[in-house]
């Protein structure tokens, strides 16, 4: 029984920058490699914007009772910082890597739907620009990235910022859904005939699972967004309690999307780590099937934990208990993954290249983020610490320590393949140390700030004992991170000016993308080597001791 049919490859040449020189080809191109790179540029651009917003936030919070930024502007900035980093940085970067490497890793020449691929990119870009256009149209969204009702209703946010938020997110959401459809279909239909579904590289597997997460999560968000749009534009009452609506219905929609969203960002990041650790430990991934299966467990459980974002809403102990259980359970498959990555290093031959350095930082910092996450599953602790800087610290340890570090690891790892040039390792190490030290300086101390009572999302704070000291330290850390990013940009700039010199397989890796020239030709593979195991290039390089045959 087959639930799908195989799609024949396009016989005609699809438009790409590589087929002509016209400037319009930037827009017309449907080449998955070019779109992948454009996704990464998009993410990098918005990372600068979101990063500058973060610097403004830290400048404002460096001293108590600061009047540098007005509360109205501060609220717009922290809202846009959250939206930008999640929807316009982390997701596009991961989608970009997946768009570029998923076909290469499974021996395909294109995505299953090349035009949908381009559509997804452009609509994400437009959604992002639309949201930023709000700054010129009467004020950016200012009700937080979570946009709780009734604060985001007309009565309390009459400026059009929230409308821009709604439309912008609907658009980027449609973009994400189209990317997810493409990943799923490509993985199912375009694998080289040798590669069975249980043989794909872990990055591909996690992107595949992630596709289903996106398909199920984003419609929830979009449904909620449309209801809010109807409320705001046509005076409906879905979320207005004074006329029969519900103030917490939105929270259910938002977090039923929002918690899977965390894993939507984390799973591909885990995929990158699962590719990088083995290559630089010179060993196959430890417990492939546990890493793969735990992703499924995470994806399924991700939908039954969202109420832990709402433990302070006042649900009964009965309801909260069950969500506490499922929230703690989801920590188990995640912890298992960390164990397997460490297991991969065991008895290896570890090369501390820049990508591997980022993986090490990931292992330490993501563990902190994961463990502090468990404290929110323990309901009474959540009752004290939710919506404080402890939570701010936790989520940055997950998103920066987990996701952004993986993206950096992926960037240094795959840059030679994408551009044909090796990024400078020396500058890379500067970037690494500045960024990682800055990150930990900024956010480790925020755990304590939260425990001593500093709530999040406040534009200023009273001069209480030690608050100023800790906030100043935190802001100094942000400067370090900023310096690290400047070095990354310098590194990208100088590297891209050099001629192409990277070999086909600079890291001596094992997955199929390293069997193509750097960068790959428009048609990825003239011919694909036969694949018998999860590491096709290992088998080719070591015919004397190949991996166990799987097909």
């Amino acid at each position: 029984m087959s639930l799908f049919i195989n799609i024949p490859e396009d016989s005609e040449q699809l438009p790409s920058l590589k087929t002509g020189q016209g400037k319009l080809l930037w827009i017309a191109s449907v080449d998955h490699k070019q779109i992948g790179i454009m996704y990464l540029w998009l993410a990098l651009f918005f990372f600068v914007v979101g990063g500058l917003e973060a610097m403004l936030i830290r400048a404002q919070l460096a001293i108590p009772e600061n009047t540098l930024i007005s509360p109205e502007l501060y609220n717009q900035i922290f809202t846009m910082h959250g939206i930008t980093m999640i929807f316009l940085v982390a997701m596009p970067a991961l989608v970009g890597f997946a768009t570029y490497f998923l076909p290469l890793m499974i021996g395909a020449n294109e995505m299953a739907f090349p035009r949908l691929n381009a559509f997804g990119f452009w609509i994400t870009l437009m959604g992002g620009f639309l949201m930023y256009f709000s700054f010129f149209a009467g004020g950016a969204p200012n009700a937080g990235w979570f946009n709780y009702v009734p604060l985001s209703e007309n009565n309390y946010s009459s400026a059009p910022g929230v409308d821009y938020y709604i439309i912008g997110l609907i658009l980027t959401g449609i973009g994400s859904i189209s990317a997810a459809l493409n990943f799923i279909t490509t993985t199912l239909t375009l694998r080289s005939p040798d590669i069975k579904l249980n043989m794909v590289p872990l990055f591909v597997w996690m992107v595949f699972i992630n596709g289903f997460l996106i398909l199920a999560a984003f419609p929830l968000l979009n449904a909620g967004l449309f209801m809010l749009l109807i409320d705001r534009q046509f005076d409906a009452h879905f979320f207005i309690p004074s006329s029969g609506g519900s103030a917490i219905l939105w929270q259910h929609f938002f977090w039923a999307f929002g918690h899977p969203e965390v894993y939507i960002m984390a799973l591909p990041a885990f995929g990158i780590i699962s590719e990088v650790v083995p290559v630089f430990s010179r060993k196959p991934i430890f417990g492939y099937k546990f890493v793969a299966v735990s992703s499924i467990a995470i994806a399924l459980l991700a939908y039954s934990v969202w109420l832990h974002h709402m433990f302070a809403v006042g649900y009964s102990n009965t309801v909260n208990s069950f969500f506490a259980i499922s929230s703690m359970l989801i920590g188990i498959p995640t912890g298992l993954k960390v164990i397997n990555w460490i297991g991969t290093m065991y008895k290896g031959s570890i090369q501390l290249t820049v990508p591997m350095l980022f993986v090490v930082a990931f292992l330490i910092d993501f563990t902190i983020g994961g463990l502090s996450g468990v404290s929110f599953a323990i309901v009474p602790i959540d009752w004290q610490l939710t919506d404080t800087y402890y939570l701010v610290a936790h989520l940055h340890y997950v998103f920066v320590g987990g996701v952004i570090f993986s993206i950096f690891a992926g960037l240094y790892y795959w840059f030679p393949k994408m551009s044909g040039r090796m990024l400078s390792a020396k500058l890379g190490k500067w970037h690494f140390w500045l960024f990682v030290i800055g990150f930990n300086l900024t956010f480790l101390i925020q755990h304590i700030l939260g425990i001593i009572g500093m709530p999040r999302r406040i534009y200023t704070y009273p001069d209480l004992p030690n608050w100023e000291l800790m906030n100043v330290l935190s802001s100094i850390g942000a400067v370090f991170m900023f310096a690290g990013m400047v070095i990354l940009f310098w590194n990208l700039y100088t590297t891209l000016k050099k001629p192409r010199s990277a070999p086909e397989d600079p890291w001596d890796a094992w997955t199929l993308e390293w069997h193509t020239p750097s960068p790959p030709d428009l048609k990825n593979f003239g011919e694909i080597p036969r694949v018998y195991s999860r590491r096709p290039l290992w088998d080719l390089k070591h015919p004397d001791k190949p991996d166990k045959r799987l097909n």
Partner: protein
Amino acid sequence: MSFTIYFLDPANWSIIGLIVTILVFAGYLLFFKTNTSQKVFMLLALSLIYMALGSPIGSLTSFGLHSITMLKQIVLLMVAPIFLLRAFPSRAANEKRLGSLYNWLPGETMGIKNTNYFIATWILMSAVMWGGHFLSAGKLSAQLGHAICGLSLQSNSWVTHVPNGLIFSILLVVGIIGLLPVFHPMPEKRLKPVQAVAYLFTACLVCTVLGLYVAFSATSAPNIEAVPVFDTVLSPLPMSLRTDQELAGMLMWVPGCIIYVISAVEILLSWYNAAPATSKKTTEHFTV
């Protein structure tokens, strides 16, 4: 009446049920050649069914506890069938006795072709999951005279004539039919692993939505807190109507989902363990 006293009182344990359970188990041992794990699964399945129907926990329903009806439904529809199907040996070991029996079990060979068959079992299972819930809630409401989970029926309503035994049997049988595509004793009649996971995941969504509906409608029912009901508060597990309904919904949702998640994980782990099919490779490269 404390729960421990109630639980240990022999009068609350069904002797007939115990005898029937033992007889069924003995018959199973005599009739089939099985290995230890299969015997354990059978024992687990039977004791779960007995706990749900014949033990003091089962009879808590007489105190109007909706959560207990939900618990019964989860056991009969979602848990016991998995154990039962696991308890049956593969065909090869029991060719003589099982050949005809397994042919009788629905499967791909039954004539309903392919996808349609799986969709049919899925729909049947989901429909019974929802229908069984509302039927038992309605019965409970008719017996007790107050609303259960938003249903308020008269004491002479038709649902009171539906025997409990019928409901329980339907739940168990449909549970078995609904889980056959995933746990069929003959592996070749099962769905492929990834499809089985999709089947379980979508079933999980059904129980999630039901659980959500039951649990969160408890808060919105206007007078559910204002009227303390004698039965539920007097039961050995005293709780308010609202707690009872929330518990019912959450039981259906979280443990219900976890059952499916564990099954999905297990199926995939064995999928990764599967030995490669005999291969037939010669050339080094092929062109695409």
